[in-house]
């Protein structure tokens, strides 16, 4: 790789294959290399320009022998929203029964993404 065009090196995290990508800005777009499938281009573009993440945590559940119910987001949010969303989730105290996939917060912080339960608690 030449020194003249510094590349952002990253590992595609869309699947466990983990392709090593090299991303260079070229004109108005991005030049991506190292991807083994088309998803790699979209990944690199998003990762450089507007990274997104899912997140998982767990919250106390009431009225069950099970102490916690685990939760995640229905889709990824901009990475900078991780901690604001976690603070919203920390306020949750759902009551049993909770169904897997049940929406516990709809459209959290206006992201268009829901907080959902990832397990069933009787």
């Amino acid at each position, binding site marked *: 790789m030449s020194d003249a065009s510094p590349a952002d090196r*990253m*590992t*595609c*995290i*869309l*699947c*466990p294959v*983990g392709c*090593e990508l090299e991303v260079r800005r070229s004109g108005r777009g991005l030049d991506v290399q*190292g991807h083994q499938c088309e998803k790699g281009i979209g990944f690199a573009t998003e990762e450089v320009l507007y990274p997104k*993440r*899912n*997140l*998982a*945590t*767990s919250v*106390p559940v009431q009225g069950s022998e099970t*102490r*916690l119910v*685990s939760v*995640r987001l229905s889709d990824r949010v901009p*990475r900078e929203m991780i901690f604001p969303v*976690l603070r919203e989730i920390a306020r949750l105290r759902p009551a049993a029964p909770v169904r*897997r996939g049940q929406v516990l917060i709809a459209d959290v912080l206006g992201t268009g993404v829901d907080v959902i339960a*990832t*397990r*069933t608690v009787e």
Partner: protein
Amino acid sequence: MDGIETRDVVVIGGGPAGLAAALGAKRAGAEDVLLIEREKRLGGILNQCIHDGFGLFLYGESITGPEYAERLAEEAVREGIRMETGAMVLDLAPDRLLRVNARSGYRLIQASTVVLAMGCRERTREMIEIPGTRPAGIFTAGSAQNLVNLQNVRVGNEAVILGSGDIGLIMARRLTFEGIAVKGVFEIMPWTNGLERNVRQCLIDFGIPLELSTTVVEVKGRDRVESVVVAAVDGDLKPVRGSEREVRCDTLLLSVGLIPENELSKRAGVELSALTGGALVDETLMTSVPGIFSCGNVLHIHDVADFASHEGFEAGAFAARFARDELPAAGKVRVTPGVNIRYCLPQSLRPGTAGAELNFRVTRPLRGCRVTATGRSSGKVYFRKKYGRLLPSELQKIRIRPAVDEDIEVACHE
């Protein structure tokens, strides 16, 4: 008939491999399948793995461990598989007689076939011999994961993580979410042991330092951990004198490797591999004891649950065939690891097997390399493939298309 219970297929363990094995056996025509799970809840270690990234291969989407476990368990319930939770297999004899302590009491089960799917354990501080005091605050990464994700316990306030295995990386992010400062991840090897995607989204995202070729050489603190001393290591993994540095923390997490849990396999006389810690198997995943099969992390350590399940489906299907006497005894040709290969699995094939799927891991990161499978007597090349990059942390799968009727060696040349 006397009172002894008989079963076509008994699966020991209800995690991603065991649930899949039970399903695989049922779908391959076994009528009478029994799965035995020690815990109250099916799913095994998936239940505490609340992060996403599971199911990409099995379900074609990224879901969390508990979701993956529930889905797989629901499939098993739908297909009428009998599953006993809160039941523990105390002993397994070579003739496949099981001694089981279940909720209903102690009983014997005579199985036509057994599928081992007991998973693995974590290596502990004692196994890596870190000097220093013996204070509270030292956890394996998985036990910390259980405490935080299932039991609502705060494990500490400032943590150091030794080892860059996937659970350690996942826990670095998890502790950060819980407001616990992670001071660093220290890895004795010059490369990371976890998947690259976990390095990026668990460490880099949160600015958590990863120091390679570095290890913990001392633990300090009387009642609770007060600090650890870390040091750089040389090419022989020995600490470099003068490089020591003290890192304040009250918690030390160990993510230093997993060991297949083969106590029962040993009782049954199953021959184990020194390279994998699991059973030696042929391409049907049958061990050295006829009628006993092995899959998932008890066989060898997998990177992702989906692959453990894949192996489970296969082992279950072959077990069903053995139970129907459709898998006659056969000789074997050996599959051995050559240069740069840490292990390959299965370790043997039935002579004449075509299309065999082989798993292997490399010993160190390799770039621009070529993997070959070569006949040891004829020199014939049965398989050849180029790779841009291979990492020890990534289990690889290849398929040997031609029929193999001699010992073969799998090697990787740069």
